[in-house]
């Protein structure tokens, strides 16, 4: 299946993905409502986007007590709004931190790959986010690991 392939080396931290995502997912231009999240590294000189990997287990889906999380046509785990009661079990079952909860609608939401046409990939000007038929992976772990040494050292120096 096609997944979001992330190449953090290309990310400029422009947050266009977050703006596009929040608009498509919730109707608001608001990074705090985006289900793709950009993290800064090395004192905001490098960045990495992070979102749901559409994992094989689907911890959110198997945890839902009312069957409100299913697999959509794009192969993404997707929340059915009319079934979700907002119990938040999916938010603690997902071990990746990629389940979200909207306090205004009282429902869970997550990356559903925009049903097969992901807005974040469209919005990304540098192809740091691509929608491709590849095996999902830990796209940004190594990138972050190299840069965390710097952060840890900097904090040590500042102590």
């Amino acid at each position, binding site marked *: 299946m096609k997944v979001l392939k992330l190449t953090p080396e290309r990310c400029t931290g422009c947050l266009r993905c977050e703006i596009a995502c929040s608009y498509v997912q919730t109707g608001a231009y608001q990074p*705090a*409502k985006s289900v793709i*999240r950009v*993290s800064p*590294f090395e004192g905001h000189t490098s960045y*990495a986007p*992070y979102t749901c*990997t559409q*994992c*094989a*287990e*689907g911890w959110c*889906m*198997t*945890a*839902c*007590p*009312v*069957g*409100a*999380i*299913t*697999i959509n046509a794009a192969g993404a785990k997707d929340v059915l709004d009319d*079934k979700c*009661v*907002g*119990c*938040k*079990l999916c*938010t*603690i*079952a*997902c*071990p*990746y*931190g*990629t*389940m*979200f*909860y909207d*306090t205004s609608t*009282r429902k869970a939401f997550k990356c559903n790959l925009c049903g097969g046409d992901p807005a974040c990939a469209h919005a990304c000007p540098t192809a740091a986010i691509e929608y491709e038929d590849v095996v*999902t*992976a*830990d796209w*940004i*772990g*190594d990138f*972050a*690991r190299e*840069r*965390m040494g710097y*952060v*840890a050292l900097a*904090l040590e120096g500042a*102590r």
Partner: protein
Amino acid sequence: MPTRHLIIGGGTAGMNAMRTIREEEREPSEITLVSAERPYSRMVLPYYLDRSIAESHVYTATAANLARWKVKTLIGRKATALDVKANACTLDDGSRVEYDDCLIATGSSAVRAPVPGSDGRAVHSFWTLEEARGVLASVTPGRHVVMVGAGFISFTILNSILALGAQLTVIELAPRILPRMIDATGAELVEGWLKAHGVTVRTNVKLARIEDAKDRKRLKFSSGPDLTADVVIMATGIKTNLDWIKGSGVGVKRGVTVDERLRSNVPNVYAAGDIAEGRDLISGEAAVHAIEPTAQEHGRVAGANMAGKDVRYRGSLIINIVEVCHLDAASFGAWDDARAEAISGLKKERSAYRKLLFTGERLTGAIIIGRSSDIWTTNDVGMLKGLVQSGQPLGRYKEHLRRNPFDVKTVFIAAKTTSTLLPETVLGRPSKAPGDSPVAV
């Protein structure tokens, strides 16, 4: 002849087991479900209580769904005895059901504080659908509801009671609220939040009796002033529904003791959910968790093994979350392990708290509190679960967290937690969507 599976209990564990049997079996089997109640989800009862969903929404299977999945149902029946030599279960109407293998999934029930008047008029439990109906009918705007017990069950319905316009007082025997879910610092934060949202909280009080006071109820305590209430809700704990199985030869301690395949000491008798005493992921010890996610995983693993697969279960992780007035409080794993090394951070002005419990370099427990509207909280909730679940050594990132306990996300990503977690599945294969199951159609 097809294998005859008997599922005793139509709650989360039983439903997940039936669904998994149908997903995994190579040849069609016979499934019989014995369930005292029509299958529904206890998790969604609070949303039924505040009327945000209709009663029809709580059911996890309709008769048509179960028929389509070729489940023979004995709804309204209770199992009263298990004859493990004859492979037969006796029901409360005297009938017997024979099986090739069976799943004990009879769950748990609410218990009330053993004080005079606890079974009287206008005193409720909130555990079953029937009990929820009782509470629903009695909580109306302006009425004073006293909740006895400030634990998980109590907290799942706080929002609903407030949403119905009732006045709420919560009383707790322990010196603090949520004594089995968060620590004292976290409890203080949540208690402050509750009081700011108009809830009266009294901890360290021992209920002595509940009396009638004309149309109302009067609660008397070992010390301190009385309380007058219109409705009393007893959220004073649960017990496993074990009595019927005692003496059957099925091994029982705090629950039915099960191995890594969810099998009891009797090879063709499985147990799952609140009634099962299975492996705890963190301690490796046998434990009764009585939480929804454990019942789901137990049911799935038991079902796969009953269908002839050989699936071993790693163990259950204790995970709990409650939300009150848009403040989230969650805990994971061994959050109260006194031997663990604790690192914590508190931002009172943001009502945010993190407590990270390390055993060596591994995160073995965590507590997190923060506002629901704060996306940082929601991300950290999942990532803390992931760090505890993965069990990976965090090395130098532990020191990073010691300096900044709120920087969970950076550590999660840099520790390559995603790489560790991605190959993990409960059944050794990708999960199927619930639409193809008897659970929800």
